[in-house]
């Protein structure tokens, strides 16, 4: 069976009261540098520590939409994921599917291109890749190109051809000269630079006020949140603990993250790559909710998203409670949900 009926989901607003601890928490994430808190938290046992009696099971996905599918199908309860797929599932389900309960990472995405492309003007007629249609980088590229005056469409036509391609494939195709560039998250930006001689044309950080834009958030199934707020709270405690660990062990972090990546994908990243990647990513529990309206507008503009309200996408009450208990500053839901 797929999902429980609609009526229960409104209970999510009552997240702080009632509910029971879940026997099991199924957590999803991607084997990416931008998901480092998940990798480290699992690797170091920080989540398990926080969850106590609740068993932690993890699933690693290749891309955000797959994680969303698992979340929708009830195969996982929470997942680390990019903001756009989160927005997407929220709008598609008329606000019933999931809630963002915390931020994870910001920064770490860029448009890298081949030699010979030195300004946005050189992009006319080129073919650029993104990780997947409608994912955070895909939307970013499309809306940036639109700002630059280029037309694009979701079927690969327009002035600049955008072909959503799997990251590994992108590297190969770029090396073969079949792609002129790609808007990618870390570590792929670094891989293209280090392994294939690409260079950065646009660093996404430059496009945002104060350079902060969300690349990863923590998304929880709305029913799970309503039913087991204690468990989610424990998860958030683990998450904050991991963020703290990353802060305190900056020197050790690349090795630990690389070990986790190797454990998941079978191949470690080059030291150069992992180092460069981490320089461009910042980890924080603040989801930067204020940016989401812009993200929605970008998605609409890019044609990868349906129009709809994201009111209620955030439920940061638990996060703020935990932050408060730790004596930290609360974060804002930017009028898009509970704080």
């Amino acid at each position, binding site marked *: 069976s797929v999902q429980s009926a609609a009526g229960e989901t409104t209970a999510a607003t009552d997240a702080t009261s009632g509910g029971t601890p879940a026997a099991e928490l199924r957590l999803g994430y991607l084997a990416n540098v931008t998901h480092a808190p998940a990798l480290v938290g699992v690797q170091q046992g920080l989540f398990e520590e926080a969850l106590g009696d609740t068993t932690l099971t993890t699933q690693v996905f290749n891309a955000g939409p797959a994680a969303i599918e698992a979340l929708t199908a009830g195969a996982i309860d929470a997942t680390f994921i990019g903001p756009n797929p989160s927005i997407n599932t929220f709008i*598609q389900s*008329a606000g019933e599917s999931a809630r963002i309960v915390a931020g994870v990472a910001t920064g770490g995405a860029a448009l890298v291109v081949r030699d010979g492309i030195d300004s946005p003007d050189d992009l006319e007629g080129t073919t650029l890749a993104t990780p997947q249609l409608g994912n955070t980088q895909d939307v970013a590229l499309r809306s940036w190109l639109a700002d630059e005056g280029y037309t694009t469409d979701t079927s690969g036509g327009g002035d600049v051809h955008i072909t959503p391609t799997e990251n590994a494939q992108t590297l190969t195709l770029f090396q073969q000269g079949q792609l002129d560039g790609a808007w990618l998250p870390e570590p792929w930006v670094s891989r293209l630079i280090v392994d294939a001689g690409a260079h950065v044309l646009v660093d996404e950080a430059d496009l945002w006020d104060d350079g902060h834009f969300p690349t990863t958030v923590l998304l929880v199934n709305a029913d799970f949140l309503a039913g087991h707020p204690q468990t989610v709270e424990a998860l958030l405690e683990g998450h904050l603990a991991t963020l703290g660990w990353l802060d305190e062990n900056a020197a050790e972090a690349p090795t630990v993250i690389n070990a986790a990546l190797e454990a998941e994908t079978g191949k470690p990243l080059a030291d150069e790559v992992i180092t460069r990647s981490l320089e461009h990513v910042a980890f924080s529990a603040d989801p930067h909710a204020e940016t989401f309206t812009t993200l929605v507008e970008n998605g609409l503009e890019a044609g990868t998203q349906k129009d709809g309200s994201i009111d209620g996408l955030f439920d940061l009450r638990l996060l703020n409670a935990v932050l408060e208990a730790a004596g930290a500053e609360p974060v804002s839901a930017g009028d898009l949900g509970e704080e």
Partner: protein
Amino acid sequence: MPHEDDSGSAGRVATKERIETADTEASAPGLDTLADARHSTDDDHNDLRSLEAGLDRLQTAPERRPSAWRRFTTSVLPPIVFVVALVAAWQLYVVIAEPRPDIVPGPLGVVAAITQAWEAGRLQEAVVTSLERGVFGFLIAVAIGTPLGLLLAEVKPLRRAVGPIISGLQVLPSVAWVPAAIIWFGLTDATVYFVVLMGATPSIVNGLISGVDQVPPQLRRVGTVLGAGRWRLATHVVLPASLPGYVAGLKQGWAFSWRSLMAAEIITTGGAIGFGLGSMLDQSRTLADLAGVLATILVILTIGILIELVFFAPLERRMLRRRGLLVERGR
């Protein structure tokens, strides 16, 4: 063995007496006409003609095709009614139970998704791209499969060696060729065509072979007896006679083309590959847009059925009807 002693005429006369005729009025004139008829062979012939005409009339019942209206009410209407009822029930469920629209979109949502894709021009592009690839790939498969099939059907040793391999290839899901094709041809249209070819060609070859196999040996012998040489036997007898099997093979070949195409399009997204229905399906999936997925499935189904109804069904029906092989289904 019980029978009469036929060695003498006396015995016969005796046995004849035993027959009582109930209908003497009818039989007596019958015998008279019999006697009269012998006088003229012209009369004989006319007699034979009228008898044959009567028998022909009795033995050939005019083929009664069901009326268009009856065919409509018995075979077109029921499925339409069923589908309409199904859609109504679906809509009702959506209205009453209000399920999550990303898990159970309503029929209206699906229609909206189709309209939206149409207005954005994506639907048209996808349909044209896919149809183009499907038809073109199918035609290449026909161009390769037909001579290959003829060769295998007519050259026995070749067939013994290659035939089982081709049948084996028919067992292999053509989707399995996609990864290999991607490695060989990258994310280009060549990949798609390769997969379509590997999917459709075995069916066409096997169809032609079984068509030639099913040519009644009697027809070949008739051709030989009528004085046809090897070439005229092939063109005047074997080829037309194997048409039903060939058309069946073509039909199946098209089905496999379409299947393989969709598989290839769903899997090989990105790169330099064009935007087809499979890509559209995959896109809707990545966007968690179930209404879009169902809309695309519907379009794929419709195209499959349309090609069948508009192209193959009339072709096959006409051919079978001309040969009297068409069995009107059900009463």
